[in-house]
């Protein structure tokens, strides 16, 4: 978990730092310096336009993290209320409608749909966010409902009902605080999946548009010269792997910490 937090933290730090400072300007080309391997000046080498890969990777981290984070926000913002509503109407028609709607979104291959979405509304980072976010909604709705259902059978909920509180108030005051842990864990998982999805979308040219660097597009551009300069392809890929790995380890660690029963089971 410490390793996970460190890796995820490193990516966040690089992204945050890139707002203020990068070793080189990411739009500045220097054809004479193209496709250099790692040197003292360019720690991660340069790409086919002579741009500094370290700088691009840092700004790319910003793109990836921003897209994934907002997509998780969309998923939580819509999915959690839906899950809470479904749980408070458990077994009735509204629950049924919400959950079948979720199943339907689940049936759509997310990547194909995201590509379709990006094609309909034009490729941009914003549309990538929305496309990834939509597919986060059913995930959060399901997790929320599944976690909220057992809580509705507990005594303190009955006490709140006796005290005259409505279902909405109970959901917000009593159910939601008791499932926050689970939602945070799911959030880190979806966050890491979001980074992979963003990389995939921008790899096929449907994410952030040039000149904004993104890890996926750096890989796409590197593909044609992978034989000449393998580092151009290896470095952005390693960034994705390490960030996603960090987030997954962090999520696992958080889950164990927040639910000691799981730790005993492992």
């Amino acid at each position, binding site marked *: 978990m410490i390793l996970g937090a460190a890796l995820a933290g490193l990516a966040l730090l690089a992204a945050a730092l890139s707002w203020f400072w990068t070793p080189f300007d990411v739009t500045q080309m220097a054809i004479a310096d193209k496709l250099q391997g790692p040197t003292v000046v360019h720690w991660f080498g340069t790409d086919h336009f002579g741009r500094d890969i370290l700088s691009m990777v840092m700004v790319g981290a910003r793109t990836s993290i921003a897209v994934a984070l907002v997509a998780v926000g969309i998923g939580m913002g819509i999915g959690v209320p839906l899950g809470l509503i479904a749980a408070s109407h458990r077994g009735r028609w509204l629950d049924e409608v919400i959950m079948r709607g979720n*199943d*339907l979104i689940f*049936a*759509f*291959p*997310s*990547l*194909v*749909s995201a*590509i*379709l979405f990006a*094609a*309909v509304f034009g490729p941009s980072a914003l549309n990538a966010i929305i496309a990834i976010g939509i597919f986060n909604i059913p995930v959060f709705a399901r997790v929320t409902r599944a976690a909220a259902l057992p809580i509705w059978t507990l005594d303190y909920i009955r006490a709140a009902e006796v005290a005259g509180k409505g279902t909405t108030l109970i959901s917000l005051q009593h159910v939601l605080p008791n499932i926050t842990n689970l939602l945070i864990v799911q959030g880190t998982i979806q966050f*890491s999946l979001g980074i*992979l999805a963003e*990389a*995939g979308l921008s*790899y*096929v040219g449907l994410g952030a548009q040039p000149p904004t660097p993104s890890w996926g597009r750096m*890989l796409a551009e*590197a*593909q044609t010269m*992978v*034989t000449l300069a*393998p580092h151009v*392809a*290896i470095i952005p*890929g390693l960034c*994705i*792997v*390490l960030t*996603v*790995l960090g987030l*997954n*380890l962090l999520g696992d660690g958080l889950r164990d910490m927040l639910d000691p029963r799981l730790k005993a*089971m*492992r």
Partner: protein
Amino acid sequence: MLRYLFRRILSLGLSLLVASALIFSVVELVPGDPASFMLGTGAQPETVAALREQMGLDQPLPIRYASWLGTILQGDFGTSFTYKTPVAGMILDRIQVSLPLAIMALLLATAIAFPIGLYAASHRGRAGDVAVMGGTQLGIALPNFWFAMLLVLIFAVKLRWFPAGGFPGWSQPLAALKALLLPAIALALPQAAILARVLRSALIETQGQDYIRTARAKGLTERQTLHRHALRNALIPVLTILGMQFSFLLAGAIIIENVFYLPGLGRLIFQAITQRDLIVVQSAVLVLVAAVIAVTFIVDLAYAIIDPRLRKT
């Protein structure tokens, strides 16, 4: 069981209907009129109008949806706007690449995941388990298209054992299989990592059950208990994941197909979107979604066969 089957089939039909309506309306939102796109920018307005009428684009949306669905049910997916060939034939051609690729990847993933999952579960908490599970974390974090690039770099460019891309067709079965192997490995590894983790935790979950204690008490070795009793009971969650993964592999190969220049279903959709070939997009996405829904249905039935308790729900 019959009632269960009936209910499942009913919900299958309903899902397909709603999904088809959804696909139809989303694709209708694509900006740009296919008729003017086909004719180019210099076309006369009258020509465009005539073509729109010929293509049925002047009809209202619900009518177009109904007639689209009607012809599809007869196996006629219409004609591609750009290639002027029947869409059904194009999809059939592409499935001959996508389906074997998905099956190959799934078989590979299962072949990798089962030994790993069994090993990790039986060595729970020990160094081997920790190492193997650390490896699966890495596998999950791997973007499959990047892994694919590395595979190409090593096995196609450096060692020259495999082609770097393209597909020779099934008339040369050996070359075709060889062309699909690297993409299948790239697809399979991250899936194998997920599957191994699920299998491990499902196996560990069964360890606490009474029947496992009984099996141990009657003198079976740890290995026999694991293989004869725990594994079968751990299959339900594994089957769920396998079903989801198959759908994912069928549809999610879109990026891998791009890396290896494979003429699969995903690449067809991708190209059709850029060419505004709406009828191809609609049909191909519909086929994919229908396949996903059908796989879910089969997995549901398989549960009921493995675990009779589930038939009641």
